[in-house]
């Protein structure tokens, strides 16, 4: 399958004229004295999949982690510029980080289920945020999250077994179910398939395509085929700068920037 055909088959469903769900305005990130990200302006459109691509160390994961302030957990990390979620500045002191992270969920590179049962893994978020009113409600949230993560049929008979006992691909889908159980508006995915085999990857990619009906998704990936297959918008980062962004089909078929072209054709990276 060529890149072009893959890009054109993924039809964008962006609602025209809708305001961006999230927006970065001159975002810079420092680790101590070292600046890792420079002046990034990027719009994340609602109900779209936006993929961030670029060579290792280009700042794409750093940008992703600044969208739900996970960078706060790193010692000496500092963010400048402005990032908004529905027009609210998420770095404003009045913002509750805990609430923000409930609205902007995250799936990590390596599956990281808690050493609890499958049920408890998914119920974790709803429980701490008090989303469910009673046990039946909680059951319903857990079941529907597992269904939407495409894991229900595989685990419905063993919800009380530990989540760590699942296979790698199943664990990652469990983490996705866990993330969507808190009903976030935006879902961040940091190379969600890099630890998985091709079959599990295909399942997750299909899942991402389904999830964008309800969620705004930002995905970091090293695989350009994956970016082409799953995303409607693509942003290319290099050396901490946003080089080019636009519709995925445009980026892959008709890049405006020389560096982007070099990267997608495999000459740098």
């Amino acid at each position, binding site marked *: 399958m060529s890149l072009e055909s893959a890009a054109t088959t993924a039809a964008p469903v962006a609602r025209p004229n809708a305001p961006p769900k999230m927006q970065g305005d001159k975002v810079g990130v420092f680790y101590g004295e070292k600046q890792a990200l420079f002046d990034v302006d990027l719009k994340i459109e609602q109900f779209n999949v936006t993929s961030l691509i670029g060579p290792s160390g280009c700042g794409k994961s750093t940008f992703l982690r600044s969208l739900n302030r996970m960078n706060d957990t790193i010692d000496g990390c500092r963010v400048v510029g402005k990032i908004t979620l529905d027009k609210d500045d998420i770095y404003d002191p009045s913002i509750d980080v805990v609430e*923000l*992270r*409930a609205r902007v969920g995250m799936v990590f590179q390596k599956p990281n289920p808690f050493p609890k049962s499958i049920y408890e893994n998914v119920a974790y978020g709803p429980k701490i945020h008090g989303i469910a009113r009673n046990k039946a409600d909680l059951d319903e949230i857990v079941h529907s999250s597992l269904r939407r993560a495409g894991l229900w049929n595989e685990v419905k008979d063993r919800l009380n077994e530990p989540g760590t006992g699942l296979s790698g691909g199943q664990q990652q889908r469990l983490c996705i179910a*866990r*993330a969507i159980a808190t009903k976030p508006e935006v879902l961040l995915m940091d190379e969600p398939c890099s630890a998985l085999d091709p079959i599990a990857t295909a399942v997750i990619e299909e899942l991402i395509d389904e999830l964008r009906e309800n969620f705004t998704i930002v995905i970091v990936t090293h695989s350009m085929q994956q970016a082409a297959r799953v995303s409607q918008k693509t942003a290319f980062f290099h050396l901490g700068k946003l080089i080019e962004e636009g519709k995925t089909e445009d980026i892959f078929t008709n890049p405006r920037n020389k560096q982007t072209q070099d990267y997608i054709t495999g000459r740098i990276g």
Partner: protein
Amino acid sequence: MSAGWVVAIVLAIGAIAYFFSAQRARVQRDASDRSKEVPHSLPTYHGWLSFIFATVPALLVFLALSAVSSAILESRVRTEVSAHLSDTSAASLSIGIVHNVSSALNRLDLSGANVPTSYAALRDMAKSSGIVLADSGEDYMLPLAASVNADAAVHKLIGQGLTLLLSLAGAAFAYSRIRLRLRARNEVERVVLWSLLAASTVAILTTVGIVLSMLSETVHFFSEVNPLNFFFGTVWDPRFAAAGSGGTEGQFGLIPLLAGTLYIAFVSMLFAVPVGLMAAVYMGEYASSKVRSTVKPLLELLAGIPTIVYGIFAVVTLGPFFRDLSAALAGGFAFIQAQSVLTAGIVMGVMLIPVVSSLSDDVITAVPRAMRDGSLALGATRSETIRKVILPAALPGIVGALLLTASRAIGETMIVVLAAGVAARINFNPFEAMTTITVKIVNQLTGDLEFNSPQTLVAFALGLTLFALTLAMNVYALYIVRKYREQYE
């Protein structure tokens, strides 16, 4: 020539062998044609190999010969002494005197015809040179001691000669073996392996030796006291009486001591576990690296304080403070005694805080970062993350850490000796004195007591019981910790 000199000479031979072998290997190496034959080992390895050949066998043989020599002499003294004695129970005493006579003769430099014929004469001679000999020696011991000395000198000469010969032979053999392709590097490696193995065996053998020595005394104790009375007896009253003086056999009930031990350990854990755990959580999860690098060493400083100092603190400061405080609270009547379970427990708890916190801190920081990130990314607060994800994940490790701490508490001696008192009784009022197994071991073994009475031997039974108790806890703790480790690998 003393043993020290022999060792020094052997080492010197080894050093010379090292030097010449390395030199020879270097010459061979320089002269070799790499296209035909590649040298196998560096010259230093050839040097070390020669050093090992020159020293290790020689020193081992030296040790072995010394042991054989003293065994031969010992058995000779034993047979001759028992030929002169009708009562064999005094044999060990007489053998001891013979040895003293031998060393006195050596120090006075007497041998052959110079040896006096009567013990009394020797005793006077020894006395004038400042050497004290026992009164109960007999004349037959003098020629025996003199001939033992003569034999020892011969043995020594043979042993030293053999050692030096072997050392030279080893060095020469290793030197002659040096070839380009000799695998000196691998052989040195094997010697390193064996010496590491030997080092680790020492610890194990020592433990086995301790257990065996305690076991034999314990068996001796149980031959005089019924094990049932020991393990299930509720009265501790050993009666410091001489053995065999009928009708005054004491009561050696373990239960009051065990109860005191467990109670005091429980109180100390009650104090140490929450404080230590919270300190560990703070260190592992909240503290910035700057705070951590100051506070953690300070906390661990507590672990470096000798326990006797804690004991002094308890008996001089904390105990009287509690007594006066309770007197003030109750209007004159001090319901907390100066020596009490409470005082001992709290002071021991303070001692245990760094143990708990440092072990738990290791376990908590071993929980992968991905777990924290996963929970935080779901919008959990830090303390929710700690309570719901990190502590459950670390729980088996923490339980293991607590068991290790508990066995420290059970085995602790100096604090309880000073702070808890010596009253052996079953009592559940923490404000009164109680006592522990370790305190009673100290009590039974100190003082001027006949060694093979049950009053003394009970200390070994107590020690073995304590050992079994803490060993079981440690094994269980290690089992839990190991099981937990497998989870993330």
